[in-house]
C-alpha cells in the first residue's frame, strides 16, 4: 500500500468514526550515525523506520494514534483509534477549536542534495572521523571525539481538507571535539560547534567542514585552556561568536515566540513565555539592530522544508523587526485560537509523534559590522564562543550560558584566552543591549531541540553572526 493510500484510509476511518477533521502522516526515515573516539570507531548505527500517525478532531478535542504498519486494515484501525481517543479527551473539554483556513495543496517537494549522504561509502565516512580524532589525540587531547548523523525522510501527508503532499528531506552534519582533563576539571574545544554543524543538505556540508584540518588546533586549545586564567566575574561588554549567538537565539527568542507556549499549552513541562499576545506588534524585544525572521525557505538550513506537517507551505515571516516583536511560530489550531491568520511551523518527530509547534529557521538578519570591527570598537570586554552549557527559566527570561572559550578584549585587541566563561541575564534586557552586529551570518543547525510529552527532538536552524552586548554579567561560578 502506498504512503498516500495508507494515509487516506486512516483519514477516512477517522472521519467515519466521527471526526470533523483528520490528517495523517506516513513517514519513512532512514537514519545513520557514526561516532569515533581517540582514533577508533566507537559506534555505527543504521535505523530504518516506517509508520503512520493520524490525528483526529472530534468536536473540539484532539486524538492521535500511530502504528508501524501501512496495511489498509492497520491504517483504518489507527484512524478509528485516533477518533476514539479524541472522544475520550472530551471528558475534560476545552474551548471551541477552529483551524486557520488553508487551501488544499497537492504538491511534491525535495530538499537540495548534491551528494547523497547515505551513498557515501561507510569506509570513507569512518576514515574521516578516525583521522580527525587520531590527529586531535596526537596533539594533546585526552579525549578526542567525532560524530556524524544522517537523516533521510520521506513523508506522505493527507488531510480531510484535500491536502496530498509528499516530501523528501535529507539532513546531515557532523563535528569533532577535543577534551583535556586536568586536576579537578575538564576543558573542551569543538569544531565547528558543539555537536557539529547540520543542515538540510547532502554530504557536501560535511566535506566543506574539513574536520581533520581543525583537529590539531582544537586539541591544543583544549589543553591550553587548562592553565588559562578564569573568566573574571563582573559586568562587562560581551562579544558573542555566531555559534553561541545561534543558541542564544534558539533559547531566548525561538522558544519564547512559540505560540503553544504563549497560550499555556506547554505550561507543565517546557514552560510558558514571558510574551503576552496583547503586545504583539508593539513590544520592544531588543535593540534596533535586532531583526529576526522565521524562514523555512533558506536553502540548506536545518529548519527548512517545503511544507510543514499540517500541509502549510514554507513562508518567510518576521518575528522581530527593528527590535519590535511582530510574529510567532504557530500551527493552524494555535493560530486560530490567537486570532492569527497563519500557521506554518508545525512538525512531528517521526510518524509516531503528534505534530506540534516547532522552530523552523529562526535567526538574525545581517548587521552592518564585522567581528573585527566589533573587537576594534571594544575598549574592555570578553569575547566568548562555542556553547558548553545552557539553562533558561520556564518563561524564557532568565538565562545562563557557559562557553567553551573566552578571550580578553582590551583596547580594541583580542588578548589572553580565558577558561570557564559564563554569562547570565534576562532576555529582553540582554537583546536591548545589543549595539553591534556582524554581517557574517551562518545558518547554524541545532539537531537536538527537545520539546513535548512524549518527548520529540526537533531540527532547527539559526542564522547568526557575532554581536556585542553591553554591561552583561559574566563569570558566574559555584
Amino acid at each position: 500500500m502506498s504512503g498516500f493510500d495508507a494515509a487516506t484510509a486512516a483519514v477516512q476511518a477517522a472521519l467515519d468514526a466521527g471526526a470533523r477533521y483528520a490528517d495523517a502522516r506516513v513517514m519513512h526515515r532512514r537514519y545513520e550515525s557514526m561516532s569515533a573516539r581517540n582514533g577508533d570507531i566507537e559506534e555505527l548505527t543504521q535505523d530504518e523506520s516506517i509508520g503512520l500517525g493520524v490525528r483526529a478532531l472530534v468536536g473540539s478535542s484532539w486524538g492521535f494514534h500511530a502504528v508501524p504498519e501501512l496495511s489498509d486494515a492497520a491504517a483504518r484501525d489507527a484512524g478509528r483509534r485516533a477518533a476514539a481517543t479524541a472522544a475520550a479527551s472530551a471528558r475534560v473539554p476545552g474551548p471551541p477549536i477552529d483551524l486557520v483556513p488553508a487551501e488544499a495543496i497537492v504538491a511534491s517537494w525535495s530538499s537540495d542534495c548534491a551528494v547523497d549522504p547515505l551513498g557515501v561509502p561507510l569506509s570513507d565516512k569512518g576514515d574521516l572521523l578516525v583521522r580527525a580524532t587520531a590527529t586531535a589525540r596526537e596533539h594533546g587531547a585526552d579525549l578526542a571525539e567525532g560524530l556524524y548523523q544522517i537523516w533521510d525522510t520521506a513523508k506522505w501527508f493527507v488531510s480531510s481538507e484535500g491536502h496530498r503532499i509528499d516530501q523528501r528531506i535529507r539532513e546531515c552534519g557532523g563535528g569533532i571535539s577535543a577534551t583535556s582533563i586536568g586536576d579537578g576539571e575538564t576543558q573542551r574545544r569543538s569544531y565547528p560547534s558543539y555537536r557539529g554543524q547540520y543542515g538540510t543538505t547532502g554530504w557536501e556540508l560535511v566535506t566543506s567542514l574539513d574536520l581533520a584540518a581543525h583537529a590539531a588546533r582544537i586539541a591544543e586549545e583544549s589543553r591550553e585552556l587548562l592553565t588559562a586564567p578564569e573568566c573574571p566575574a563582573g559586568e562587562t561588554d560581551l562579544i558573542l561568536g555566531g555559534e553561541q549567538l545561534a543558541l542564544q537565539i534558539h533559547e531566548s527568542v525561538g522558544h519564547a515566540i512559540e505560540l503553544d507556549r504563549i497560550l499555556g499549552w506547554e505550561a507543565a513541562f517546557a514552560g510558558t513565555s514571558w510574551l503576552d499576545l496583547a503586545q504583539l506588534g508593539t513590544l520592544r524585544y531588543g535593540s534596533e539592530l535586532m531583526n529576526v525572521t522565521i524562514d523555512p525557505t533558506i536553502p540548506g538550513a536545518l529548519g527548512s522544508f517545503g511544507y510543514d506537517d499540517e500541509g502549510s507551505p514554507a513562508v518567510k515571516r518576521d518575528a522581530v523587526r527593528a527590535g519590535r516583536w511582530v510574529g510567532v511560530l504557530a500551527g493552524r489550531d494555535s493560530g486560530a485560537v490567537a486570532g492569527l491568520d497563519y500557521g506554518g511551523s508545525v512538525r512531528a518527530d517521526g510518524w509516531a509523534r503528534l505534530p506540534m509547534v516547532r522552530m523552523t529557521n529562526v535567526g538574525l538578519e545581517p548587521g552592518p559590522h564585522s567581528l573585527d570591527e566589533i573587537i576594534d570598537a571594544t575598549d574592555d570586554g570578553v569575547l566568548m564562543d562555542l556553547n558548553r552549557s545552557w539553562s533558561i527559566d520556564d518563561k524564557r527570561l532568565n538565562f545562563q550560558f557557559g562557553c567553551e572559550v573566552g578571550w580578553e578584549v582590551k583596547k580594541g585587541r583580542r588578548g589572553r584566552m580565558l577558561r570557564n566563561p559564563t554569562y547570565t541575564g534576562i532576555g529582553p534586557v540582554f537583546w536591548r543591549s545589543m549595539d553591534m552586529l556582524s554581517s557574517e551570518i551562518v545558518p547554524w543547525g541545532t539537531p537536538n531541540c527537545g520539546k513535548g510529552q512524549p518527548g520529540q527532538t526537533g531540527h532547527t536552524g539559526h542564522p547568526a553572526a557575532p554581536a556585542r552586548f553591553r554591561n552583561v554579567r559574566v563569570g558566574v561560578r559555584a
Partner: protein
Amino acid sequence: MTELDLAGQVVELVRRLAGPHAQAEVTVTRADLALTRFANSFIHQNVAESATTVRLRLHLDGRTAAGGGSLVDPDGLATLVERTVAAARLCPPDPAWPGLAPAAPVPPAVFDEATAEASPDERAGRVRAFVDAVEGLAAAGYCRTAYRSGAFANSAGQSAVGRTAEAAMDGIARTGGADGVARLCADRLAEIDGAALGARAAAKARAAADPIELPPGHYEVVLEPAAVGDLLQNLAWFGFNGKRYLERQSFAEPGVAQFDPAVTLVDDPTHGSGLPYDLEGTPRRPLLLVEAGTTRAVAHDRRSGAEAGVGSTGHGMPGGSTFGPIPHNLRLLPAADRPGPAAGQVSGGVTGAVADPDTAALVGGMARGLLVTDFWYTRVLDPKRLVITGLTRNGVWLVEDGVPTRAVRDFRFTESYPQALGPGRVLGLGRTPVRQPDRMDGAWWAAPPLRLASWHFTGGASG
C-alpha cells in the same frame, strides 16, 4: 509470533548470512505507549502509539555495526540483517569489542495487566479528577501509561523475555503566576490518584502566591523529592556513568567517602517497573552506588565493564556507546532505619507550602533557609566537579524558625552536586521516598525530602 521468536529469527538470519563466527545480539520490544496531556484545564493532546522495534548489534571479523527499526516482517528483518552485515564489513576495526553476554537467568519484572491495558477513558478520568481538585485554578500536566513486552537473544545462547507496565502523572496548578506541582510514578495505574495529586498541586500553588525576591547567596535548604530527583538524575548521568568514569570526567572515586554518611544510593531496577535485562542481555540487578557516604561502584555496560576489568553491571542502553551506561532507577534510601526526624507538622506560616509530614519534620528543624519544591533546566558547567546551573520552579518559601513565612521568587543556582551532598552537609533525610517519573518510561528517581546545609543561589528572578 512472539518477540522471542522474532529475536531468534534475526540471530538465525545472521548465522546464515554471515556464518557461525558472527556474533549477534538482538532485542525486540513491543511498546504500547499512551499519554493524555492537559493544559488550561482541558485535554489538548491525547496520543497513543503501538509499535514493535528490533535492534541488532553485530560483530563480524573484528568489526562492529548496529541497526534497527520498525520493519519486523520477514522482508524487513532480512533487509536489516543484510544491511548490518554489509555495514560491519565496511567499518573500521573495533579492537575494544567486549564480546556477547553469557547465558544467565533474568529476574521477573514488575507487571500489572490492568495498567498495560489502560484505556484513554481511564487516563482522561484521572485528568478529570486532577482538574476538579484544583478547584478553579488552571491545571496542566499529563497522565501516561506504558506497556513493554520484550525479548533478547544472542548467538552465545543468552535469551530473555520480560514484560512491564508503568503509570505516571505529573501536573501543576497555577494561580496568579505561581505554580504548584505534584507528580508520581507507579507500577500500577490504580496507584495514581488524580484528585490527591491535584489537591496537593493546588495547595502548593496557592501557597506560592505573592512571592518576595530575596538576594542571591548561600542558603540552607530543604529539597522536596522532585528537586532531589534532579540531583539523582545528574549524579547518575555524569557521575555514576562508567564511561565518564573511565574517561576521568566523573567525580566518582570508589572506596572514598565522598558523601555525607546519610547518603546511600542504590540503582534498583527490581524495585519498580522496567524490563529485567539490558540492551546487551545482561540481567538487571540492584547496584549499590553509595553506601553510607562511601562511593562503592559506577554503572557499566559490557564495553566499559571490560575496559574497567569489572564486567557489565547490566546497564547497556541505546546510545550507551556515546553517552555511557547510566543508572536510571536510582533510590536515595530514606532515613527509616537510621536516626532522623520523626514525621512532623508545621504550625503557622504559609498554609499549604509544606504538603506532607515528612517535609514538615525537616522544615521544622531549620532556623532560616529555603524550602525548594523543584529544579528546572539543570545543565552541567563542569562535568568533573559536577557543577550544575539551573533554576528553582513550582514553589520556593523562606523558612524562619521552622515555619515557612513567605513565598519567594525563583532563583538561579550554580552548585556542585557532590559537594552539596558531601560529608557533614546533609542535615536531615525524610522517611518516605516518592518515586518521580522520568521523561521516558522505565526510568525513575525515588527519594525522600532532603535538608542540606548550603545551596548556592547565584541569581534572582531579576537577573
